[in-house]
């Protein structure tokens, strides 16, 4: 077995065989899901808690579906229904969940490092479903699986990640995964949205879409939050779209068969033009969602292999 971690907290630090194994396992679940078969005995009797301190319908649903397809008991805890709003600390919440003997804990939090803190306290295997501006490992895995299935490989591809790199956990996880697996990774965006010394992560920085997208095999767009305008990092949505929004003219700089990705939810007309987002040939955005369920099934399967507590 290659994957040696108890948790999945980050892509950073994973070795190529570990990533490769997760992707292969996920791919087997793509076929299973499409065949309409189920494997509901795999996680039977196990409890998966979706602990979401930040709203996210799509990621939570994806984990819920993945857990149910493998037969786990899935419980969703949202921030509005939990006691976190009543002054209970993250540590208390973790201790409570621990006492309930949950096996798999999926955590989304607006603070970088929150899943690492939880992992120190709980017995369950912790899966980071997005923490602050740190990492979103299952997103990077599903992106990689999408790329692999479309392009037949990952190594050697040119991938341009475009937009708000500074505030994106998706960008960080993808940078780690894609550089580890041998891609040439570029980040493209205005200097105010490029984090300090990001080149040291093994990427090339561009501030111009034409240069950044030239000969790219994959164009990965990121969501631009409205907050960036109010905080003055970008003057306006229309100015952003003019220089960094992906439309047909800018996509033309990439390879003719380049695919377009977006982790969602999209701001149409801000970072991506609807005509591109909905392009049935170039856009793989819907496929990303499908891969998301398979990747999460693979991750749940892998982590529960190392953590089967009720096994006799």
């Amino acid at each position, binding site marked *: 077995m290659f994957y040696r971690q108890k948790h999945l907290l980050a892509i950073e630090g994973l070795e190529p065989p570990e990533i490769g194994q997760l992707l292969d396992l996920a791919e087997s679940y793509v076929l299973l899901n499409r065949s309409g078969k189920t494997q509901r005995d795999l996680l039977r009797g196990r409890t998966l808690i979706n602990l979401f301190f930040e709203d996210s319908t799509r990621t939570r649903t994806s984990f819920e579906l993945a857990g149910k397809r493998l037969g786990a008991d899935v419980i969703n805890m949202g921030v509005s229904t939990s006691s976190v709003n009543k002054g209970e600390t993250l540590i208390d919440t973790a201790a409570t969940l621990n006492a309930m003997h949950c096996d798999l804990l999926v955590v989304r939090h607006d*603070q*970088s*490092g929150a899943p690492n803190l939880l992992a120190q306290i709980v017995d369950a295997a912790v899966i980071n479903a997005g923490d602050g501006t740190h990492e979103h490992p299952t997103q990077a895995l599903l992106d990689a699986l999408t790329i692999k299935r479309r392009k037949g490989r990952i190594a050697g591809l040119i991938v341009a990640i475009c937009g708000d790199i500074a505030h994106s956990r998706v960008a960080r996880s993808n940078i780690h995964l894609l550089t580890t697996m041998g891609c040439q990774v570029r980040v493209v965006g205005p200097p105010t949205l490029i984090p300090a010394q990001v080149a040291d992560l093994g990427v090339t920085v561009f501030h111009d879409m034409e240069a950044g997208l030239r000969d790219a095999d994959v164009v990965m767009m990121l969501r631009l939050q409205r907050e960036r305008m109010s905080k003055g990092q970008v003057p306006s949505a229309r100015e952003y779209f003019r220089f960094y929004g992906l439309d047909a003219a800018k996509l033309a700089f990439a390879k003719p068969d380049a695919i377009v990705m977006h982790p969602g939810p999209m701001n149409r007309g801000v970072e991506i033009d609807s005509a591109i987002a909905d392009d049935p040939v170039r856009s793989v955005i819907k496929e990303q969602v499908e891969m998301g369920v398979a990747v999460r099934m693979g991750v749940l399967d892998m982590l529960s292999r190392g953590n089967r507590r009720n096994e006799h």
Partner: protein
Amino acid sequence: MSTDTLFSGVRIVGAGVDVQGDLLIRDGIIADFGPSLGRPDGATVIEADAAVLCPGLVDMRAALGEPGFEYRETIASAAAAAAAGGITTLAALPDTNPAIDDPALVQLLRTRGEDTGSLTILPYGAVTRGCRGEELAELGLLREAGAVAFTDGSKAIGSSRLMRLALSYARGFGARIVQHPEDPSLAGGGCATESEQATRLGLPGIPAAAEAIMVARDIRLAELTGGAVHFAHVSTGEALALIRQAKVAGLSVTCDTAPPYFDLNETSIGDFRTYAKLSPPLRKEHDRKAVIAALADGTIDAIASDHQPRDADDKRLPFALASAGGSGLATLLGVTLAYVHNGSMALPAAIELLTARPADLLGSEAGRIAKGAVADLCLFDPDRIWKVEAGELPGKAQNTPFDGRALEGVVLGTWKRGKRVFG
């Protein structure tokens, strides 16, 4: 019954003093010292081969939990930790609750220090009421009550106009303004040095320039007003270069640093370790080296503990939400001695940075070895090794950024006005 104490065969080190020999305490003062003294009848004799006897340390920057944050540290627990660390005089930051912005509170802190019997507390007064950075506190009355200098503690005085007023007004009372040098709008929301590491961890960064910008501004304001500015816990090469220039130009500009800034760098944060979350944040390696160089060349006037007590609940949070600050009283001497052992500083120079030089800045008589001086003393074995362990430190505050660090230099005993208060 005699109250004499004779230290025999120790290395006596203080400002202008470095002698192998004896030192005699009588009636709470240093009666005599020299290569060889006679033994008075009935004196307690302390023989400590290879030990160093120096003035009790003068820590020019420490936060006490009182008033208002007693769950973190009380004056009693801080005094115990200080004594164990060889500290006999401590300048207390005023950003407590309530803030030390009233003469009665200054007097209270002084008295509470006396009550410990082991620690002289020299209170800082708040520059602004409530340390809110809005209007000047009653600097004159605070000074009269015994405030040694003025600062808003961990908060920078952000407004240029207010800083000008403070420097200008305090000058009339011959008092320094101690600044936390960090441009608040540039630092805003940041919790780690802006760097590759902060980028990897997804933590909002504070650029090193936030320190240099504030230092540059305040040097100009010191020049404009003729006031005296002191920069606390300076941590970057850029800021130290500016301070070096200002000193050459003859301006009334001084600074201190704290052990984390010459012993640790940003990598201590590692996997979101909140005990290494400090303010200012731990910097890059080249800045750490610049701090060591500035200690060696005299640009830095003092080493302070920068003690900021925190409890587990303050720290067991996601990194950005955790409270910044590290416990420092017990490790001030040991970490400093590491840079004597590795040849960065000579022992007498290091001791001066911990005693006479901060005492000068605070207008205190403490921190000197001299006949007739108050016998506040620290005896330490410079070579004995111990390991810093959170949970095992003296006092209440266990939030050390040095957890797991092995240090050479153990305090064997601490004396306050001739009375042994530790060891």
